[in-house]
């Protein structure tokens, strides 16, 4: 029995609510008749739109070209005609140019799997990742090629596959690990070829014993040098900082990247996308989305084309069973509430949750009683209540001195706060104001 690891400081245990959807296999969502494809689906600069209204596009055609290094390509998820190009607000609050594509024409036949990559050079594989628009599918949508493009003098010690999925309700990674085990392992081999790390860890939380077992078994059968690491269930273990602290016991320095401590982390979904990109020559035009929540009639894990409306996904799950109180894009801890059923699924959408009125109704903000629950819960050892008060009083620079920018907005503090103080929003405001003052 392996030692079950976790990160030492802070963290919370929200009810994981995965039982709603974790027993349903991934099925295909309907192809959207109109795909809404944002140019800004990743962290960094938005892609440059390559099509005009009236253009015919094919499935998987490049329609947004990455602008510079810190950006990513965007592809059309369906064949059809460009109907319109607009600017809309995404559920994340970002404004983005979107391409509306009306379904028309033929789908590509799925290509046969090629094993060419075993003879390809790491440089070619990395180019493939750039071309296919792969970004981190865990939620942060950090362009993957930046992470993997190591300087020649850097020797990578650890590559960690993140199968933690610590957000409640979400089960898309869990199902992917069960159903696409071989593909994920091949994806890891590809990454191994690109970066050649000393050790490869696969971190999975204990609430997915079937995934742990299937990985152990398959890795054993194939004789691959990967280590499966069971982890205690604790939020926010899926954050790369916490995951690395748990697995290799090193701390990412303040303001640094995992690479600073010799590690790179990728989500299982990303690994699977890399497999598809390299072996099936398929750009990132589909992802697995968990549609769940207490008010959804049949919670499901769906394979969804990018650009599908979230309303269509809820319909596909037979609509709602109770009066819905709130629709969340992403997980319940870090996701975004939206009122727009036409909002599109993007590369970073891991879930669409519908909560009932009872759960969405939370008593309003009350006074801070200095109970210290947030201090105990913060996985980074910050003092959320003091930071919030500093921001509240407009003392942004002082908040910065108290390490405001180390905050990852994981929401642990606000989760435990008995006064329902919007701590996360306070932190965001503080960061925004500091940046704004700097621009001035």
């Amino acid at each position: 029995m392996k030692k079950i690891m976790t990160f030492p400081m802070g963290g919370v245990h929200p009810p994981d609510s995965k039982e709603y959807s974790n027993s349903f296999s991934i099925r295909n969502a309907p192809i959207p008749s109109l795909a809404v494809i944002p140019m800004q689906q990743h962290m960094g600069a938005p892609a440059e739109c390559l099509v005009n209204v009236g253009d015919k596009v094919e499935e998987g055609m490049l329609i947004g070209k990455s602008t510079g290094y810190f950006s990513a390509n965007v592809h059309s998820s369906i064949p059809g005609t460009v109907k319109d190009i607009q600017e809309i607000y995404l559920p994340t609050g970002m404004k983005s140019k979107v391409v509306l594509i009306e379904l028309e024409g033929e789908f590509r036949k799925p290509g046969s799997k090629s094993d060419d990559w075993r003879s390809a050079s790491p440089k070619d594989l990395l180019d493939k990742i750039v071309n296919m628009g792969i970004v981190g599918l865990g939620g942060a949508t950090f362009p993957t090629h930046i992470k993997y493009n190591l300087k020649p003098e850097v020797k990578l010690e650890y590559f960690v596959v993140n199968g933690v999925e610590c957000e409640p309700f979400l089960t898309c990674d869990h199902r992917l690990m069960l159903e696409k085990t071989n593909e994920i392992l091949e994806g890891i081999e590809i990454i191994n070829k690109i970066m050649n790390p000393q050790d490869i860890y696969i971190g999975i939380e204990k609430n997915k014993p079937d995934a742990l077992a299937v990985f152990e078994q398959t890795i054993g059968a194939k004789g691959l040098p990967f280590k499966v690491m069971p982890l205690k269930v604790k939020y926010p273990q899926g954050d790369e900082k916490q995951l690395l602290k748990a697995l290799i016991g090193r701390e990412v320095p303040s303001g640094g990247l995992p690479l600073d401590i010799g590690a790179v982390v990728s989500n299982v979904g990303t690994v699977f996308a890399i497999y598809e990109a390299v072996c099936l020559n398929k750009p990132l035009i589909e992802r697995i989305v968990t549609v769940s929540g207490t008010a959804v009639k049949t919670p499901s894990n769906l394979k969804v084309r990018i650009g599908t409306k979230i309303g269509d996904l809820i319909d596909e799950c037979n609509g709602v069973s109770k009066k819905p109180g709130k629709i969340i894009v992403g997980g319940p801890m870090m996701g975004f509430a939206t009122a727009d059923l036409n909002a599109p699924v993007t590369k970073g959408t891991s879930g669409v949750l519908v909560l009932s009125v009872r759960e969405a109704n939370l008593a309003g903000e009350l006074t801070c009683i200095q109970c210290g629950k947030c201090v105990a819960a913060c996985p980074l050892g910050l003092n959320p209540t003091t930071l919030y008060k500093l921001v509240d009083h407009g003392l942004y620079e002082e908040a910065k001195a108290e390490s405001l920018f180390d905050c990852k907005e994981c929401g642990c503090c606000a989760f435990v706060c008995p006064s329902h103080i919007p701590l996360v929003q306070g932190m965001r405001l503080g960061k925004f104001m500091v940046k704004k003052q700097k621009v001035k």
Partner: protein
Amino acid sequence: MTPDINPIVLFFASVFTSNILLANFLGMCSFIAISKDFKSANGLGLAVIIVLLITSVLNWAVYHLILVPLNLEYLRFIVFIIVIAASVQILEMVIDRISPALYMTLGIFLPLITVNCAILGVVLLLQIRNYSFVQSAVFGLGSGIGWWIAIISLAAIRKKLEKAPIPAGLKGPGITFITIGLMAMAFMGFSGILSVQ
């Protein structure tokens, strides 16, 4: 007669039960003036500990080895103050040399320790109570630590109160006086304990 008090008990008494600030109310001015900022409060508190320890020992020696044999006890006020001033001057130079940052934070208040009533008060108490050399050193150190604890706790409280919606008229000195009053009220609980006379 030297009173018969165990030095450990005396130390504890001088830190808590007969706290120089909150039970004897000595050294109030710098206590209120410097406690606005935690860092300078801490620095001043540490400076007071050192000065108190040095001056208690020096003044005990001066009094018992010079003034008493020469029958010059009536000069004690002047002599005590001169000894305090001299040791503070030397300390000031040392701090300036070792830690200019601390020197800058303390600013005018380091020389002002010279006239901090807590220092002279402690020195006079030593002489009035007729403490032995060891007792003097312990009492000086304990009183300094007591003063330091009191000022850093007040500084931390004031830091916390900075962001509180205190009624406008009570902001600043008003709420500080109320806080000190409540703290002193709590210290009354120690009344009667180990009353060091």
